[in-house]
């Protein structure tokens, strides 16, 4: 998970930005590799999805705050009963979805529970 870090103000960005919104032209951006561990801010379990995701239902979606600060939206692979606000998660590489009738499969980052993640 590659994002950016502004050396001027210290803020981390995911997804990566080329311009630091805090510092604008005085910002100094560098690439940053996120550990990917974070905390669930809020979540839902989706029972009715768009066509590309229908076969995955029910699946959990969460807003996750990475330990470095930025927030993102991602799926959490675990049973819906085990989802909790405040739970710790770590990244896993999984099939994300299938596009259209021809079924082009694409991969990406999901998250899994990680109660032991520091």
């Amino acid at each position: 998970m590659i994002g950016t870090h502004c050396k001027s103000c210290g803020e981390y960005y995911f997804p990566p930005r080329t311009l630091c919104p805090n510092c604008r032209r005085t910002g100094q951006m560098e690439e940053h590799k996120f550990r990917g561990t974070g905390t669930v801010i809020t979540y839902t379990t989706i029972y009715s999805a768009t066509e590309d995701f229908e076969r995955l239902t029910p699946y959990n979606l969460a807003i996750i705050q990475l330990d470095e600060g930025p927030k993102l939206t991602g799926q959490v692979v675990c049973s819906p009963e085990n989802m909790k606000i405040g739970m710790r998660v770590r990244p896993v590489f999984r099939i994300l979805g299938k596009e259209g009738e021809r079924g082009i499969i694409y991969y990406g980052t999901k998250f899994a529970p990680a109660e032991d993640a520091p």
Partner: protein
Amino acid sequence: MRAVSIIGVGCTRFGERWDSSLRDLVVETGIAAIEDAGVTGETIDALYVGNMSGGRFVEQEHIGALIADYAGLSSLHIPSTRVEAACASGGLALREAFLAVASGYADIVIAAGVEKMTDVSSGVAADALAAAADREWECFFGATFPALYAMIARLHMRKYGTTREQLAQVAVKNHHHGHMNPIAQYHTEISVEDVMNSPLVADPLRVLDCSPITDGAAAVVLAPSEIASRYSDTPIRILASAQASDSLALHDRRDITTLDSTVHAAKRAFSQARLTPEEIDVAEVHDCFTIGEILAIEDLGFFPKGEGGIATEEGRTSIGGDVAVNTSGGLKACGHPVGATGIKQACEIVLQLRGEAGKRQVDEAEIGLTHNVGGSGGTALVHILSR
């Protein structure tokens, strides 16, 4: 800046209009608004139309020219502009029309909105609507609109103790209001149990927490206030028009349980109108999901943050309460043809302020407000209207 008034309104029946094309809906609403305003085609200076996704829903773009054409105005060659801000497209069309008149650039201007959504499958409709979210960083990972609002709802419940029943009460109230509105998509009353027993869409939101897929169109006619009485015995003043934006993706917001775009648009509108939220008698707010109305009544300043649920439960937002919210039935029961919604909201407030709202009339309504949101809060528009 000149004072601006609404001199005419027109709205189609909302619902699954399988017998009417997008063009038919435009003609129906255009004729109604122009007749209500008592203007002739020759006096119209410009037209703005809100439409979110003609391309996806009916494979038709260039809606500006199409509307002018089918409203019978093509031979007059007036400027006709389509504007888009997802579900706030209608509110944005109203604002653009307001600015055109207020600036002195045009006199008689029509603001319209239209969406024909039921020609495609529900999956295609859901995907077209999802285009209002962040494709790359929300939808790509499986987000849907109900899911985004469900995540807001869950955190609001955790932070403020909002209950599942309170969310349901928004839908119950709006169906109660909607059953008194002849143009509403649904004329059925529902109970809290009906909402709680409806199928889950995105936990904790259920089918009856969600606004439906709807066909419909609406139009209003604007004029400078100084000449409005030439056309209407009951012109309605637009005291304020405000717009604000925020990050496209929900996860980038300062606070997941507040729509800052609503907060800022409301602040600007109340300051323009020199009014406070307590002075609003009737409001049409953006209840695309039940939690949306709870956020709206807090973020507009009607109730303190976190108290929207209890205020709804106590009936303070029903007709006869502190502020009558969504007397049309809202997006939930009146229906949500996305591009038309912001204009329908203005039509409803005009009817209320004229005293023409029939069974759902709010007693002595003098000041009204409309609140229209695009996406999960990337855009918000607030208008304040007065008798």
